[in-house]
């Protein structure tokens, strides 16, 4: 029963996708859609909650086989950690769905929006519930994809498109590394089920491949969670509609990397590399994001940088890995989701009502938007870490962990705390309490209920858990921290725990942070002057440019359009590989070369053929070359005749004659031969040609040097008359023993006939292409005679056609 309650939400969320599209068709208003669709995540949340509660602290698991050939099963595992994430995904998700109904009020494409949003919700829930790591990866990639589609929701704008692509490439690239890491992890651990791997504990750390596995998985986690130096995609992702930013790029998806680290901490954690790689990257991210936050003025970008800093904090805490740090991580995760979600939604509401997100322009919204302002205030206070809000408890824990770990870590935490206070002031206080600097694009009113209910609820929950933290500690944070640690961590949270070093540091943070906020303008200007353009984002742009340049260069180099270079490359590849193999095996040096058996006329014939060959090459006249070619063919026919192959000789003669006639007919009108290539080109071509020729000679000699088995040919000799009733064995082979070859052969002939006919006679409404693209610059060389060449079938009326080749040609010629 519990097991199925775990799987059912996935189907519910999937069902919402077509339903959203259908509702749109039925003409529901966006707000109605929002309220109705919010029932889907809510129902899912209730099911999961019931499953957790009735499991009495034990993990709930279910496994549905799916792709056994790949060791992938749809196996779900719900423990403390995944419950915490599921709560955020579904709970905040429901609020976001309602909110989007107001925010995208007049959008005709809201059906699609909800479809992608539910696809994301489905995928994100999968990430945190999947027990099978490959399954987790599948959901992981789906979150990247749905994030791509949602960031690019305003796809008419180039900025949205490039931001979407950037997010996809960065997270997708990390995802690929992670795939390799996961596959290796599964191979060294013997299973892809996380629960089974967790049992093995730290044993895997002794495997020689452990470090690469760790590095690859970290790469996936870091890109997804926007850790330095991959942090740059997240602020750019703010091009998405605000509900998306709040949901994907603050509350849930960006935390998937943190989730993965937390999930795998019991297996991978504790290794020295883990501490420095995870803790160090987390710290660097906190520092970079904090600094960058000070120079922002856009509400969403401010929140984005502080989100990056928060993600860094979570990463740092997991890197530290002590029970205290993990407890802090779980607490901070929840607190951050509550206040940051609320602030994002507030930012959206402000933007929606005033038409701007530029903080220096905003102010005085308290009167017009009291409910929104209340939500903003509560959330900002929580974010700044003031009692009695939940953010205070979380920050105290972070500081305590910092103190526990050492002064450097503590300094980083403090640095980040300052910027948090600053951003809280910028986003939650300034727009409402500061004086407006100029007139706003719209005169603001309170946002609709869809849009204030969400932030207010989140902010109130932040207040409530701050006042009464015990329940959350016991039910949510304790189990989550225990899952992260792989052992039970008892968690008791209290709002007030006396004057401790952490508390004193908190006071310092608030005071200094408030000062920074007060002098925000001069701080920003100073930082903007000092700004340094060569960051990772710059590198990303340059590497895209570099990629394009490299691609163009390589294509010009390889795909030059000149046939002779293609041929040269192919010929040389063959000569080099075959020649090298032969030389390596030492074959050429042991060949017996005997010419004792050559008869005089045979030698003469050979000389004749080679002479005619040379003549064909050197002839300055087309007809001369063709005639010489004919002589070569005839000479070969004579060879066939001499060596017991009259059928071949007859056929060769007949075909040679026919070929020469065709050559003459086809090329009668062509201009004289010219020597188009320079002498040096001709010389080097001659060298290549002679090399190839020598190689082929060598190969023939090698082949005839080996003893051949006569079994097959003897069969034909013995059975041609008795079983196939023919005396001419060659003909019997052609029409009986190997008649399938002949069937193919005449098919080739037939197709060639059709082809020649089609090529020579095909004419159709050329005029159409020309009238469609009159500017089309046809080469002047397009001979007038071409039109008169085949008067027979040129239709005078242009035929209607859907022929793509014509216009594609038009596109290229221009």
């Amino acid at each position, binding site marked *: 029963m519990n097991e199925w309650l775990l799987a059912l939400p996935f189907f519910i969320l999937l069902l919402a996708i077509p339903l959203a599209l259908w509702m749109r068709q039925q003409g529901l208003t966006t707000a109605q859609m929002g309220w109705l669709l919010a029932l889907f995540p809510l129902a899912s949340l209730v099911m999961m909650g019931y499953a957790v509660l009735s499991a009495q602290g034990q993990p709930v698991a279910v496994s549905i086989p799916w792709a056994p*050939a*790949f060791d992938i099963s749809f196996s779900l595992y719900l423990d403390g950690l995944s419950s915490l994430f599921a709560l955020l995904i579904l709970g905040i998700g429901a609020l976001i769905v309602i909110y989007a109904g107001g925010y995208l009020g007049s959008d005709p494409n809201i059906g699609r929006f909800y479809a992608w949003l539910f696809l994301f919700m489905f995928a994100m829930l999968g990430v945190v519930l999947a027990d099978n790591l490959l399954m987790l990866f*599948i959901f992981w990639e789906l979150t990247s994809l749905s994030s791509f589609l949602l960031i*690019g929701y305003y*796809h*008419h704008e*180039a900025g949205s*498109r490039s931001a979407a692509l950037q997010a*996809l*490439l960065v997270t997708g690239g990390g995802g*690929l590394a992670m*795939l*390799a890491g996961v*596959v290796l992890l599964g191979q060294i651990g013997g299973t892809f089920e996380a629960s089974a791997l967790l049992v093995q504990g730290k044993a895997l750390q002794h495997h020689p491949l452990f470090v690469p596995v760790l590095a690859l998985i970290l790469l996936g986690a870091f890109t997804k969670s926007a850790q330095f130096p991959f942090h740059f995609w997240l602020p750019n992702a703010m091009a998405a509609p605000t509900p998306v930013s709040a949901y994907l790029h603050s509350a849930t998806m960006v935390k998937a990397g943190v989730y993965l680290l937390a999930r795998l901490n019991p297996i991978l954690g504790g290794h020295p590399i883990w501490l420095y790689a995870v803790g160090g990257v987390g710290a660097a991210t906190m520092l970079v994001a904090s600094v960058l936050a000070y120079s922002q003025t856009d509400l969403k970008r401010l929140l984005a940088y502080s989100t990056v800093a928060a993600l860094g904090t979570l990463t740092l805490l997991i890197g530290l890995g002590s029970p205290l740090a993990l407890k802090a991580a779980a607490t901070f995760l929840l607190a951050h989701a509550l206040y940051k979600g609320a602030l994002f939604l507030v930012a959206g509401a402000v933007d929606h009502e005033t038409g701007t997100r530029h903080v220096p322009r905003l102010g005085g919204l308290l009167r017009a938007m009291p409910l929104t302002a209340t939500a903003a205030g509560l959330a900002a206070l929580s974010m700044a870490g003031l009692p009695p809000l939940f953010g205070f408890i979380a920050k105290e824990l972070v500081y305590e962990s910092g103190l526990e770990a050492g002064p450097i870590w503590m300094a980083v935490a403090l640095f980040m705390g300052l910027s948090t206070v600053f951003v809280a002031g910028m986003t939650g206080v300034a727009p409402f309490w500061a004086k407006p600097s100029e007139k706003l694009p719209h005169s603001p009113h309170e946002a609709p209920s869809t849009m204030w209910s969400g932030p207010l609820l989140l902010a109130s929950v932040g207040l409530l858990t701050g006042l009464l933290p015990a329940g959350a500690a016991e039910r949510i944070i304790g189990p989550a921290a225990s899952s992260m640690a792989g052992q039970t961590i008892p968690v008791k949270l209290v709002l007030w725990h006396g004057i401790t070093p952490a508390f004193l540091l908190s006071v310092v943070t608030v005071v200094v942070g408030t000062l920074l906020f007060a002098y925000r303008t001069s701080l920003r200007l100073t930082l903007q002057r000092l700004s340094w353009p060569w960051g990772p984002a710059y590198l990303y742009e340059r590497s895209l440019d570099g*990629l394009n340049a*490299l*691609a*163009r260069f*390589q*294509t010009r180099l*390889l795909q030059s*359009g000149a046939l002779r270079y293609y041929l040269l490359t192919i010929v040389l*590849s*063959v000569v080099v590989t075959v020649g090298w*193999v032969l030389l390596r*095996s030492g*074959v050429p040096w042991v060949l017996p070369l005997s010419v004792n058996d050559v008869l005089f006329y045979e030698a003469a014939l050979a000389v004749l053929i080679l002479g005619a060959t040379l003549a064909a090459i050197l002839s300055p006249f087309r007809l001369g070359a063709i005639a010489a070619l004919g002589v070569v063919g005839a000479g070969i026919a004579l060879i066939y005749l001499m060596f017991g192959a009259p059928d071949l000789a007859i056929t060769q003669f007949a075909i040679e004659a026919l070929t020469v006639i065709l050559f003459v007919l086809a090329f009668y009108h062509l201009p004289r031969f010219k020597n188009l290539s320079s002498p040096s080109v001709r010389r080097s071509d001659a060298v290549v040609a002679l090399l190839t020729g020598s190689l082929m000679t060598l*190969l023939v000699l*090698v*082949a*005839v040097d*080996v003893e*051949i*088995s*006569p*079994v097959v040919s003897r069969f*034909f000799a013995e*059975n041609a008359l008795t079983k196939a009733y023919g005396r001419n064995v060659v003909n019997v082979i052609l029409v009986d*023993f*190997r008649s399938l070859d002949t069937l*193919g*052969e005449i*098919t080739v002939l037939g*197709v*060639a006939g*059709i*082809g020649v006919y089609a*090529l020579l006679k*095909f*004419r159709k409404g050329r005029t159409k292409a020309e009238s469609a693209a009159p500017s089309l610059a046809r*080469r002047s060389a397009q001979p007038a005679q071409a039109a008169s060449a085949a008067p027979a079938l040129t239709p005078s009326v242009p*035929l209607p*056609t*859907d*022929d*793509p*080749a014509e*216009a*594609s*040609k038009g596109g290229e010629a221009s």
Partner: protein
Amino acid sequence: MNILILLPIAIPLATGIATLLAYRSRMIQRWLNVIGSTALLAAAIVLLTEVAGQDILVTQVGNWPAPFGIILAVDLFSAIMLLLTGIIALAVSVFSLFTIDAAREQFGYHQLYHFLLMGVSGTFVTGDLFNLYVWFEVLLISSFVLLALGGERAQMEGAIKYVTLNLMASAIFLAALGLLYGIFGTLNMADLGRIIAQGLSPQERGPVTALAMLFMAAFGIKAAMFPLFFWLPDSYHTPPVAVSALFSGLLTKVGVYALVRVFTLIFIHDTGFTHTLLLFLAGLTMITGVLGAVAQYDMRRLLSFHIISQIGYLLMGLGLFSAASLASTIFFTVHVSIAKTALFLVSGALYHRYGTYDLKKLGGAYHHMPGLAVLFLLAALALAGLPPLSGFFAKLGLVRAGLAQGHYLIVAVALGVSLLTLFSMMKIWNEAFWKDRPDHDQRISSLRGEGRNWTTLLISVASLSLLTAIMGLGASPAFELALGAGAQLMNPDLYIQAVWKGAP
């Protein structure tokens, strides 16, 4: 059972002949085309069910036993390839009904279509190397004509290169055949495999490896392997899109099939050299192909370069040379043919609507045709290897095989290239679907995309795109089948014994 093996050759041949005899009526030819393609698909399905349950099917053409007569043999690998042929054939034939102009139909489009299919199927069933050459020529000459049919300048220029380089491949193949016969006195593939497996004398070893190089070059040209692929990007974008789609789905795969066949059945005496070389070339094929694609702004040229880079993945499985890696190659082949054909058809649908393949001029398709957009996305993401579509599992199979065998470098290349694939697929998406149309006063072309034709045209795209999704969700059974094929390939004795035993 004899008849069954014969069908993949006989059905297209009979269809080709019938359309040739009905050269006066375009209507009859069109019907025959679809009926013939459907029959081919049906035959392939029956064959696959037949082969999946039991041994390798063999028939002795003309009732002459191996190695004297020509043997047709269908193992799982062949049967899967035949099924693929049937799928592509049917989808493209329906698509071409509504996109090929009357003039091309009059001048033999439908015959050529089926003669091409005959050549393709022939390569998949034959057990004789010279016969393989003949089928190659059948499909080549048909592809020559299909490519050149229409006589546009770009087509001519593309065709000249295509024809020359492919004839070069044929010449190399023929030479290799002659030399092989000169050494072993037989051309039956099972016979050759048997002889080589029994052990070569030191005197034979070097020359046989040298011949293996010739075969690698000959088939490598057809498969568009690095550095032999030049003909492909210069020609595939010139004919009508139905032809491009057909070619992209089937032709290079024939080269890959031949490579897999000879490098699992015959030339396995020096895998340390030959297969490592293949692996090396596989990596270069992926990289050069995808970089070529990145540079393109013409949708069909972009897709053409992707064919090359995907060939690299197919070769990777062969180069790794294990049952799992070969299974991945087979799975990948089916996946990529379907996805790539779907993408070409999407480009055709876009062309049908907007009159251009130029990404800079395209735009707004997400808005105008959300259905097509979703179909494109399915196929494009499948190609880029995103889960849960077919391409992900194809890639996963290769990555797992590569990592398990310790070939980390090629795995890294494969993953990196899949990111670039994603990049260029999303370039199409951004430019053609998301971006607004740059030129609004351009008559929203002709907006020919209305009515019955449009729906029917979409059916082909939809069936292929959905197939990639189905192949993803149902990856496991499909891969089990491929694993069976891979296991057969890694145990060439099965094939040899089946051929030796002859027809039951």
